[in-house]
């Protein structure tokens, strides 16, 4: 495996191997000296064409903990804002000698374009492309769900668990990658949201579709993942306004109180408190939101280690 563009690039065994590798990275991260020499002398570029603080610093920290040199390239303040093409940007980084490109881009498939073109020999890691995929987010979610619900010692898949993803499924790369990965790992995945945000063809990717959140929650899911609602959706007739969304599909205080204490609550962040999730839910004992952030670093270390230390050394 040279690139990680989509969850489809991973077989079930590959995914489990990454999750279990991430546990080893968690152990590194819990030590006083949080550093491995695995990628010493290697250079990793964060290539971000779209704003993202959390994912970028998570990758940056992951690469640094593996001793890689990290450069950050963001479209704002760079030549991209002056109209440089993707090809020129990638070729420029290639000429500087970069072994991995961690790419976030506002266009779906831009990471595939970089990986398939002959612009660069670097490994490409998808850090979120348009409304397509965000595979490391799905891996960190799977790790979080497994550890919180099945225990830290569980190294197997997620068979028997049921997960509900709520919100803007149509535009969510997090939802796509999670549907693919969680089902690959044996979990049952249902989705819920207003019909304007549930795409045609969802049937093949999810086990059940709900338009009504209260009805969905009666089914007793093991984990509920609330997605971030973007403000611009209100302007394109996907929904009338935020208050209506919150009342229909938000995890507000009254829904949270009926949820039961065993249901895990996830959110990929950043949260709109009071819109898709209330503070009481987000800050509760059963919320795994900060675990997701912590596990993000470990999972990204595992991905970088696998692509750069294991795979590239096999080639050399």
């Amino acid at each position, binding site marked *: 495996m040279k690139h990680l563009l989509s969850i489809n690039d991973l077989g079930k065994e590959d995914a489990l191997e990454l999750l279990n590798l991430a546990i080893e990275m968690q152990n590194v991260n819990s030590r006083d000296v949080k550093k491995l020499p695995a990628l010493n002398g290697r250079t990793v570029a964060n290539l971000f064409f779209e704003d993202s603080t959390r994912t970028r610093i998570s990758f940056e920290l992951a690469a640094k903990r593996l001793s890689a040199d990290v450069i950050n390239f963001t479209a704002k303040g760079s030549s991209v804002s002056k109209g440089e093409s993707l090809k020129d940007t990638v070729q420029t980084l290639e000429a500087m000698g970069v072994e991995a490109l961690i790419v976030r881009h506002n*266009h779906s498939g831009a990471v595939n*374009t970089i990986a398939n073109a002959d612009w660069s020999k670097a490994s490409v890691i998808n850090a979120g492309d348009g409304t397509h995929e965000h595979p490391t987010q799905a891996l960190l979610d799977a790790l979080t769900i497994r550890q919180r619900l099945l225990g830290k010692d569980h190294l197997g898949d997620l068979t028997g668990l049921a997960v509900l993803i709520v919100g803007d499924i149509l535009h969510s790369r997090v939802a796509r990658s999670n549907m693919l990965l969680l089902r690959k790992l044996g979990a049952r995945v249902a989705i819920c949201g207003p019909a304007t945000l549930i795409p045609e063809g969802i049937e093949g990717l999810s086990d059940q579709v709900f338009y009504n959140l209260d009805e969905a929650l009666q089914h007793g899911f093991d984990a509920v993942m609330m997605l971030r609602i973007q403000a611009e959706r209100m302007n394109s007739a996907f929904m009338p306004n935020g208050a209506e969304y919150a009342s229909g599909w938000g995890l507000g205080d009254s829904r949270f109180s009926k949820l039961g204490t065993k249901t895990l609550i996830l959110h990929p962040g950043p949260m709109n408190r009071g819109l898709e999730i209330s503070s009481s839910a987000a800050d509760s004992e059963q919320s795994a939101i900060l675990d997701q952030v912590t596990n993000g670093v470990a999972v990204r270390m595992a991905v970088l280690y696998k692509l750069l230390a294991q795979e590239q050394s096999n080639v050399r």
Partner: protein
Amino acid sequence: MSDNLMIFRGATLSNGDVIDIAVEGNSIIQVGTNLILEGTDIDCSGLIALQGFVDLHTHLREPGFEQSETILTGSRAAAMGGFTAVHAMANTSPVADNAAVVEQVHALGESAGYVYVQPIGAVTKNLEGSALADLLKMNQSRAQVTVFSDDGKCVSDSLIMRRALEYVKAFGGVIAQHAQDPHLTIDAQMNESPVAFELGLAGWPSVAEEAIIARDVLLTEHVGSRLHICHVSTAGSVEIIRWAKARGINVTAEVTPHHLLLTEELVRDYNPVFKVNPPLRSDSDVLALRAAVADGTIDIIATDHAPHTADSKDCEWGQAAFGMIGLETAFSVAQTTLIETGMIDWVRLEQLLSTNPANISGLERHGKAIQAGHAANITFINSKRQAVVTGTTQSKSTNNPYIGMELFGEIVHTLYEGVLTVKHGQIQELKNA
């Protein structure tokens, strides 16, 4: 005997007759078996002779976008594809919305000399959809425009569409509609389907095409005019057109070669060579389109040849231009998808690629039977060849989606107004050009 008398010996016509065709000047002077004439004999045994092809939908890009194609390079590509006439779409810069531009395009076509270049006029001023272009003046110009289209954009305003349909009745014109509801396709990137959702690309629903076609056939009926539908791409559109024709509405329809062969599955690698408007659709749409060609619901095959520079395709999908070239491959795709599947015969293919498009446009020297007294516009085909498509092209652009695919059939000779523009599969350098 004349120096420039050519006898094409032993060619097979679309109806199966094997004959000799004698050509002198720009005319067919005699057709028959074992003609006793002296001239240059060209052995055509085993070749099929069809009326020269007519493309009703070509983007030649000149004036304004000469970096992707010129009238000369596009004409050469057309000749290589067996075409003797093409219709140059109006979305040039400046837009072909007035007599001066269409006359310029027409004149450049004549000086190139490879095919008859018939300009299409814009329906609305600057393709903006809000005011009619100079339709009558373009018709009365030396270019004699009869087909009008805002192709690339839809005439989406119902009132403007109605007025255009009414207005062209004065001179027997036809409005060729690019059927695409603009609001239903904001930012759309590919066919709306499960594949689009998986790829995270904004969907382009079938209904965005079908709703416009339904509206326009009803408008056409209401005002008693004539409508042509460009590049039909969905099974639902076929149903609506079939219904309209049964009702007696004066509508014709075209399909592109790529919509007869390629499907949305090809988008999965985000290779922009497959990015096209209307988008590649599903398997069932492709099959419905082929059936519609066979049963007469669709009248013609038109290329929608859309050259783009390498840079505008060597980028991420969302940034890439819509369109693919198709003049040189159109016939082979048609043979592969329609003849080799047994869905149509050569007579029908000749109608689709020659007779019908010439009739829609009213071209007098094209789309006529291969017989004495008619213009010498003939395409000679080797239908037995099967070959992998390469990137070699006479076009200035290389956005060819068929590279690497195996297709049937090749153009051996193209005869345009008595001049061999293509001989033994090679483009000819014209002396008077």
